[in-house]
């Protein structure tokens, strides 16, 4: 009977519908009660030319230039890109490749800025009157300010903020789920800057013309739910619901959250906009508010610096480009012996090979863990016993054990037929696997190999095209030469006779 009531509630929309699969993870929010504190400015800031999904930016300043805080230092060329701004006033000391937080350990071109301690700041014109402006104008500002999704996916925000007649947006979802263990940045932002987030929500809503707004927060953050409810009341907004969702990982993933709230699934290969939904992180909404009402570019973010091996965990407001080693030292961690540092949350983050990498727009957490806290770190992969747990927890309803087999055996086409590319790499399957199979690692291997195969195929196709064009050109030239020779032959005998005669 309670199940029936629950189902009825879900159908009628009184209750969140929930999403398929997922797992319960220990939340370990060590820093939930630590107010956001300011991180000091390091001696040098290292700003990679790509901190988003999409195309790389190009430096628009030169070595030796003096830059202001918030001044654009790298511009975009392609559509899918977000510019980079100087987080502090200072001098550009060098522009060269530097290692970034990436599993490959490879680097990207970076701009190095030495702060000069001055407080010169560049700001765009503040628009308190945004309600009277064209949404396209606001969108351009969001783009210019380098705003990307701050939940961790770093997708350029302006791309999502379109009014499309074919796909009107009905529901705007503000994502305050933060389902990854340890991370508390969104939680603290909601507690400390609820009004700014709600202002950001109003701007986003105006831009896309959404009728209904939902602020979704997991029920392990009841205080944030309360604070956000009060903020919505203070702002006297209508059509905005603040809902507490049952805690379950990976609810914070965009597609899972949409399924959870609306009961609708985003089709494979489509975007939320195709089912009339826009999803934005709470921190992104706040960044949009700063960009529009204060003309401030995105130059800093709140990062949870936590973990059992962190002496003084906390939530730090860190300027982009601050070296991770410097940030860890601010929290009392200097001896990194036997400590694993994670970039991001424990489920989806990456273990850093080196801490000499900068904090970027994607950095939502920096965790220092002891070896014993890392699940299955030294476990040896056993044969699959076909228990089916991975399939039960997969929020995309894939068949992880088969997928992993195909990837391991280099049967990539078959893995693709099993929808390898729909995998969101949430790590639920690896987490529950009793045979300690590193499933997600196999999927990443498979995706990478497939991408390389596709690239090689495209390259071969282009090479073929060029080579065939060259063959045709050479044939044409040969033809023309022969024609000239024939013409010469036809005219020379006559001349020869003339000469002889």
């Amino acid at each position, binding site marked *: 009977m309670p199940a029936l009531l629950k189902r009825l509630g879900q159908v009628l929309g009184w209750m969140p519908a929930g999403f398929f699969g997922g797992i319960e993870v220990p939340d370990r929010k060590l820093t939930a009660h630590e107010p956001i504190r300011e991180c000091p400015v390091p001696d040098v800031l290292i700003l990679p030319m790509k901190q988003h999904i999409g195309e790389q930016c190009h430096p628009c300043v030169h070595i030796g230039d003096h830059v202001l805080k918030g001044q654009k230092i790298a511009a975009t060329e392609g559509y899918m890109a977000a510019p980079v701004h100087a987080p502090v006033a200072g001098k550009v000391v060098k522009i060269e490749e530097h290692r*970034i937080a*990436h*599993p*490959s350990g*490879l*680097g*990207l071109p970076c701009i190095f800025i030495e702060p000069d301690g001055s407080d010169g700041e560049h700001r765009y014109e503040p628009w308190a009157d945004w309600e009277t402006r064209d949404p396209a104008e606001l969108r351009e500002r969001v783009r210019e300010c380098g705003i990307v999704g701050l939940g961790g996916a770093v997708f350029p925000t302006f791309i999502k903020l379109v009014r499309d007649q074919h796909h009107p947006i009905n529901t705007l979802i503000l994502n305050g789920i933060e389902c990854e263990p340890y991370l508390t940045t969104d939680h603290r932002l909601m507690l400390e800057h609820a009004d700014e987030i709600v202002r950001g929500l109003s701007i986003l809503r105006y831009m896309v013309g959404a009728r209904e707004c939902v602020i979704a927060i997991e029920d392990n953050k009841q205080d944030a739910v309360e604070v956000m409810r009060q903020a919505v009341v203070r702002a006297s907004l209508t059509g905005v619901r603040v809902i507490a969702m049952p805690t379950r990982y990976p609810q914070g993933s965009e597609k899972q959250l949409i399924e959870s709230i609306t009961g609708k699934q985003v089709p494979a290969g489509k975007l939320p906009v195709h089912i009339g939904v826009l999803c934005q992180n709470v921190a992104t909404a706040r960044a949009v508010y700063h960009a529009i009402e204060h003309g401030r570019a995105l130059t800093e973010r709140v990062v949870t610096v936590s973990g059992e091996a962190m002496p003084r965990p906390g939530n730090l407001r860190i300027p982009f480009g601050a070296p991770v080693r410097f940030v860890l030292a601010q929290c009392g961690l200097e001896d990194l012996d036997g400590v694993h540092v994670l970039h991001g949350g424990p489920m989806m983050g990456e273990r850093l090979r080196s801490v000499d990498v900068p904090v970027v727009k994607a950095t939502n957490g920096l965790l220092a863990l002891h070896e014993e806290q890392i699940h299955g770190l030294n476990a*040896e*992969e*056993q*044969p699959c016993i076909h228990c089916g747990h991975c399939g039960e927890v997969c929020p995309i309803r894939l068949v992880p054990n088969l997928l992993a087999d195909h990837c*391991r*055996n*280099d049967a990539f086409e078959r893995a693709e037929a099993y929808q390898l590319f729909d995998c969101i790499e949430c790590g639920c399957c690896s987490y529950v696997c009793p045979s300690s199979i*590193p499933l997600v*690692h*196999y999927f*990443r*291997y498979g*995706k*990478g*190999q497939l*991408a*390389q*195969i596709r*690239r*090689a195929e495209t*390259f*071969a*196709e*282009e*090479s*073929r095209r*060029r*080579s065939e*064009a*060259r063959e045709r050109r050479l044939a044409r030239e040969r033809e023309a030469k022969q024609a000239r020779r024939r013409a010469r032959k036809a005219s020379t005998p006559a001349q020869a006779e003339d000469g002889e005669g």
Partner: protein
Amino acid sequence: MHVLIAVASLGGFALIAGLLLSLAQKKFRVEGDPMVEKIDAVLPQTQCGQCGYPGCKPYAEAVARGEADINHCVPGGERTMHQLADLMGVEPKPLAEEPTAPMVAFIREDDCIGCTLCIKACPVDAIVGAPKQYHTVIADYCTGCTLCVEPCPVDCIDMLLKPELIEHWAWPLPETERARIGRERKGSHARAA
């Protein structure tokens, strides 16, 4: 009488069927050898000639005729060899030569005399330049075939390792015992067959 009807009707059917067949042959006529096209499609199109044939198409034709073995495409490596084995219905073979790391040609412009010989040699039009002007390689188009190195009279073309781009980086297999065993089995299968 019955015999005549039988002969006439069967003969009529035969005539109609024959007409249909001849029409179908005209209409669905296949130009060229589809096998050559299929083989050419899986070759990497570097036109490098490392297989002993003057390009990918000639190698594809030789394989289709059964003259060339399936294991001579050096840049294609294991994957191409397996695809060719599938297409030809033969067992995979060990590669005739170990595949090399992807390369790209680079012209030292200080030494270039602008003779255009490398431009003429490039099978994919990846070198730009004009007589008595510096030449340069369009790195994104270069297949690393090394055909331009030999003709250069002043030896100003270097073959460099293709730089590793962070966007093109791919995850390696997990370093577990099972992944390693699988890898070895695959390798030995290709070598033993």
